[in-house]
């Protein structure tokens, strides 16, 4: 479904992404982990069309992507952002946020689609005419997910979708994402700094460091510790040590 070959992104003199390649099958999830500055979010922004200054080859469903995307691309590929406080327009109600994609793509039955969209992310119908500041962080992220789904996309790009949320809300949102994938056959690319979150949702995982994809491995291999790159090993060790409430942390 998604093919990325030798993607490079520059910011002035700095090469933030240095030739990475990966492929994601239809209905599968690919996770990208890395620390801040590793270039993981930059990959997502290039893929989504927010950043058009890149070289290499990217294709969705066999169609090569140009730097400037057409309307059909934006219908099929959608993105959910990290900060649910920043990704909703502060002066627009939930209803307005959800109807915007429908207007842009000329999709009818706005009333029915909005109500079904709210129900799909388990938001009560009363939330429909609220402003973002009247919602909790988890509810806002649900709105952002509902908005991304309005145009009935095939691919969802998830940029740290739960890292701004409380852990209890994180679990709800991760469950929701898993359900939606199953129900709609969505293809996910998930970017996160949290190994456990990525391994929970994704079958294949790419590890980024300094703009390069240093290792690609399956979630089972990661859990079992069959890592080959030292950075992956280090991230895995820290993650497993921290999730055990007792026991030492080695630095």
């Amino acid at each position: 479904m998604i093919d990325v070959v030798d993607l490079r992104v520059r910011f002035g003199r700095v090469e933030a992404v240095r030739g990475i390649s990966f492929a994601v099958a239809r209905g599968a999830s690919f996770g990208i982990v890395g620390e801040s500055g590793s270039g993981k979010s930059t990959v997502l922004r290039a893929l989504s069309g927010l950043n058009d200054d890149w070289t290499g080859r990217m294709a969705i469903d066999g169609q090569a992507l140009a730097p400037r995307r057409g309307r059909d691309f934006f219908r099929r590929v959608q993105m959910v952002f990290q900060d649910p406080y920043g990704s909703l327009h502060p002066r627009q109600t939930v209803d307005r946020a959800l109807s915007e994609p429908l207007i842009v793509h000329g999709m009818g039955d706005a009333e029915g689609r909005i109500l079904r969209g709210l129900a799909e992310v388990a938001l009560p119908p009363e939330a429909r005419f609220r402003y973002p500041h009247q919602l909790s962080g988890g509810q806002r992220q649900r709105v952002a997910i509902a908005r991304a789904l309005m145009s009935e996309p095939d691919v969802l790009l998830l940029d740290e979708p739960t890292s701004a949320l409380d852990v209890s809300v994180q679990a709800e949102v991760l469950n929701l994402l898993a359900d939606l994938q199953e129900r709609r056959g969505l293809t996910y690319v998930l970017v996160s700094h949290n190994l456990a979150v990525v391994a929970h949702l994704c079958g294949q995982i790419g590890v980024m460091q300094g703009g390069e994809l240093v290792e690609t491995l399956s979630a089972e291999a990661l859990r079992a510790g069959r890592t080959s790159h030292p950075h992956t090993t280090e991230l895995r060790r820290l993650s497993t040590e921290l999730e055990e409430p007792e026991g030492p942390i080695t630095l």
Partner: protein
Amino acid sequence: MLVDIANLRVTFPTPRGPSAAVRGVSISLGAEKLGIVGESGSGKSLTARSILKLLPGNATLAADRLSFDGIDILAANERAMRAIRGKRAGLIMQDPKYSLNPVMTAGGQIAEAWRAHHKGSARQARDAAMDLLAQVQIRDPARVAQAYPHELSGGMGQRVMIAMMLAPDPELLIADEPTSALDATVQAEILRLMEDLVARRGMALILISHDLPLVSHFCDRVAVMYAGRIVEELRAGDLTRATHPYTRGLLDCLPALSHPQPRLKVLVRDAAWSA
């Protein structure tokens, strides 16, 4: 007892009457490391900041007892508080980007913090700053001292912040989510560093965080807050033996690398927890 809090209440006025954000919290603390854990809005930050009387302007503070080293904080005026804040109790906040002065070098800021509480020449202050930078395990103190905050990485900035707070030799350090903005590898280093410094100097530490497993690694005791109350207080090593359903729920809903689950457990909130 360095910090003694009994029945602390923090309320905010709203158009529908006062709303309580902290509802009867009691904590006492000696030279030890206490973690306060809770979700956003649980009142964990407000509780810790009450000790320094650093609350939003419209908050009302009340307690049966609120004292720092025998000083009655409730009765203390602004002047008495200034003698405590920064000097006897330091506060480290989440993002060093916003808490360091952008137009002053790191060394200059530490030296100034030192001079504000010690008598000494500019030269002595500079030396003290170097010494503090070395204490927070910065390998090249001379270079970092000359650097401006935007030239430092997040972890380095947080080390500078810690050095600044240590300058006046405080007895208490309050760290409010000190590593949430940092990478996992740096996060563990910073927490370990704070743990070491606090132990070596015989200080008390209050570590505020949303990350229950993380905090338990670096604290002696953990207080779990929910809706303005402490629902459970545990020795850090006893986390697996937590009894309160909220604490258990928090631990259970985390995805874990070592225990894969097809579906995450969801925290089901009980109205009785906040009653």
